[in-house]
């Protein structure tokens, strides 16, 4: 740094950004790193719980005619597994990585809306409890991870199981929207001077694009689950064909969200891969522009292929043809990215540490998932394989292969930045081989089972079907992968105390987060860095250029222009506050109440309004001069 802070200035800065100690600090913090860490720990716990459900189901399917689970318990298990993994794990963990990394990669001290990030986590936690507390008392949703009416309508789903599922979605989607708006605003308006659009790191691009996709797609699912609740609670007729409603409307709106969601999960993973490949190949990413444009292409196409989830519904032929073509077209930008990563590795000097191993595992696994995806995208073939284990195999290959493996790589890659210590390479490699090997052993046979006709969501099958041996292999593979997951978590736990000290830049990374100490101080950067290339830490070897002028005695951030990132003004950054927690509690009361009575919307709005008014209460002094001066 060119102009180090004096000790007095450094102390003052640390005081300005410090949280209150103890429980009060825990409840009021708006620090993006603490909030993201909460998200990630919650996700790890949920992954364990939902993973145990998966293992339980695999044990039930290991042999024909098993009776250890009843059909009802099996229905509940796969519904809870799918809903948790899609709504409470995959999407939130990608947002958490954005909340943690985006300000650091942009050289900023905070997100654009720090309190909104806190609100987002508390609301997400509400969604987690909304699903898992009822499960603990035996009211588990049992209609799969998408609950189609009329099965989920008032005529066929008595009780509150379906309501709990629908309202859990509302919780997590509001949380996701809050997080996405925050990330997009931060990326657009809070970049360091010099970071023009062309110099944004690929990971930040991926999160901005995923955030925009979230903003455009998630309202559809919130709308549709709210319509479902209205049908069930106040007898509206959205999905009742006998009264002019249409159950297919549910599927259209659900998949208008559901398909982009897959890419909302995948694009950040592609961002992880790009960063890891660049660092570990020790060269700039091959085809930066092509990779970013591919991401934009995927984002655009993602909104034009939801119907491939509905080929069996009986839509017009031309519709199926169009969506087959659009679905296959996604393979082009996705393939382009993969070739760029391979070219980077090919022309670089790759170093095969654990993060890169995960990327290689990702490439192999994701390509298989992509190929089975092209098969399933073909409407005539899909008519045969829809709702079979082929589909189960396909989406586990793309979701685990395409998102979870890069996520684990990203975890290894940024773990030293977050904790100051490196994870054990030996345990890391063991976990890698167990997870990737176990996963492929467990899920590849499901392609064959699907082609042999084994349907999804069956709790058992008879011996004469001949599905026993492959199912046993699948169960063995899943168990190995779960063991690998436990090794991974144990490694993270152990390394927190006993790992080798990392220093600020253990991997020789190129982006700004590696310029700050590990773990980063609460204000992240003493001075705002100034960027002159895509890889500032590689081009400014001696010392990072910085911009001075941000206050140390109060929380301040720099706002820059959208295209060129020229500094515009200093912006006050909000202090810790209890208002986000109270607002989230008020929303929670409203949401939970509204599955029992429509009046919850009316009376629940009162505490919510009070909490929001407290949150947004003006803090600036009234003017003493001019036309807006206080009248005495």
């Amino acid at each position: 740094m060119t102009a180090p802070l004096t000790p007095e200035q450094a102390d003052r800065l640390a005081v300005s950004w410090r949280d209150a100690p103890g429980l009060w600090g825990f409840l009021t913090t708006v620090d993006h790193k603490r909030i993201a860490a909460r998200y990630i720990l919650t996700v790890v716990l949920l992954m364990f719980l939902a993973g145990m459900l998966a293992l339980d189901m695999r044990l039930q399917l290991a042999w024909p005619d098993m009776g250890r689970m009843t059909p009802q318990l099996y229905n509940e298990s796969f519904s809870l597994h799918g809903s948790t993994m899609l709504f409470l794990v995959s999407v939130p963990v990608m947002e958490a990585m954005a909340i943690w990394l985006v300000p650091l990669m942009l050289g900023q001290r905070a997100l654009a809306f720090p309190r909104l990030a806190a609100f987002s986590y508390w609301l997400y936690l509400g969604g987690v409890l909304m699903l898992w507390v009822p499960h603990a008392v035996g009211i588990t949703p049992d209609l799969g991870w998408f609950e189609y009416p009329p099965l989920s309508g008032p005529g066929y789903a008595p009780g509150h199981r379906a309501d709990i599922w629908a309202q859990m979605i509302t919780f997590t989607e509001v949380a996701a929207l809050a997080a996405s708006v925050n990330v997009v605003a931060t990326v657009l308006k809070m970049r360091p001077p010099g970071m023009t659009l062309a110099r944004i790191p690929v990971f930040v691009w991926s999160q901005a694009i995923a955030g925009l996709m979230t903003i455009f797609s998630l309202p559809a699912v919130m709308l549709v689950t709210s319509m479902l609740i209205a049908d069930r609670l106040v007898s509206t007729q959205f999905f009742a064909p006998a009264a002019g409603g249409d159950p297919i409307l549910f599927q259209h709106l659900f998949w208008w969200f559901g398909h982009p969601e897959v890419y909302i999960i995948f694009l950040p993973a592609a961002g992880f891969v790009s960063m890891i490949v660049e660092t570990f190949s020790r060269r700039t990413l091959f085809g930066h522009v092509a990779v970013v444009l591919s991401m934009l292409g995927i984002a655009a196409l993602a909104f034009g292929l939801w119907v491939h989830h509905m080929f069996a519904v009986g839509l017009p032929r031309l519709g199926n043809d169009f969506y087959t073509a659009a679905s296959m077209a996604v393979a082009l930008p996705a393939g382009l990215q993969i070739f760029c990563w391979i070219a980077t590795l090919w022309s670089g000097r790759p170093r095969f540490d654990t993060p890169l191993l995960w990327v290689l595992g990702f490439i192999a696994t994701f390509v298989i998932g992509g190929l089975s995806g092209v098969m399933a995208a073909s409407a005539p073939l899909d008519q045969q394989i829809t709702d079979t284990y082929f589909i189960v195999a396909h989406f586990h290959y793309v979701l685990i292969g395409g998102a979870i493996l890069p996520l684990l790589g990203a975890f290894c890659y940024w773990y030293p930045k977050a904790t100051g210590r490196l994870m054990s390479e030996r345990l890391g490699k063991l976990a890698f081989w167990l997870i990737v090997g176990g996963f492929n052993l467990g899920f590849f046979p499901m392609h064959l089972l699907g082609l042999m006709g084994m349907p999804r969501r069956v709790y058992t099958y008879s011996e004469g079907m001949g599905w026993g041996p492959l199912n046993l292999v699948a169960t063995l593979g899943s168990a190995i992968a779960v063991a690998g997951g436990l090794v991974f978590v144990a490694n993270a736990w152990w390394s927190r105390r006993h790992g080798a000290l990392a220093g600020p830049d253990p991997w020789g990374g190129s982006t700004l987060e590696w310029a700050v100490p590990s773990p980063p101080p609460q204000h992240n950067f003493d001075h705002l860095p100034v960027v002159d290339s895509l890889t500032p830490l590689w081009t400014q070897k001696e010392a990072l250029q910085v911009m001075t002028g941000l206050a140390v005695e109060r929380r301040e951030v720099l706002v820059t222009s959208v295209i060129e990132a020229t500094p515009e003004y200093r912006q006050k950054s909000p202090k810790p506050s209890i208002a986000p927690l109270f607002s989230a509690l008020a929303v929670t009361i409203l949401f939970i109440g509204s599955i029992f009575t429509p009046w919850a919307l009316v009376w629940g709005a009162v505490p919510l309004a009070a909490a929001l008014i407290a949150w947004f209460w003006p803090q600036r002094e009234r003017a003493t001069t001019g036309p807006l001066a206080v009248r005495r």
Partner: protein
Amino acid sequence: MPQTAPNGAQDSRAAAYERNLYQVAQGGRYFTWYGCGSCHGRSAKGPLNLGDRVWVHGGALDQVYGFIAERHPGATAGYAARIPAEQLWQITAYVRNLPRLTPEKRRRQDLDQVGEPQGSNWTGPVR
């Protein structure tokens, strides 16, 4: 699974049916399948209306069950010969729950189930 009729208004098996919305909903489907809805549908008037809290033949558990099973004029000497005991428990639970259902809710549930067989167009096995 009960094989016999309730042994009184306070039969201990009742809770498993009357306080379980799944069982009540199953009763509703049998109510339609066995054709009960053709006379006791939501537009039924007077004594045929089962949702008005007026029980001509008594509203206790054993009275409702007993009337459907033994004395209902729709079948010779009641429905016990045609409907298995557990289904009768479920239908009884549904019928006793009807007064708690608002007219809109009942209409909405019927709308969802309009494609179900309605007594006379039942195509499944008949005992």
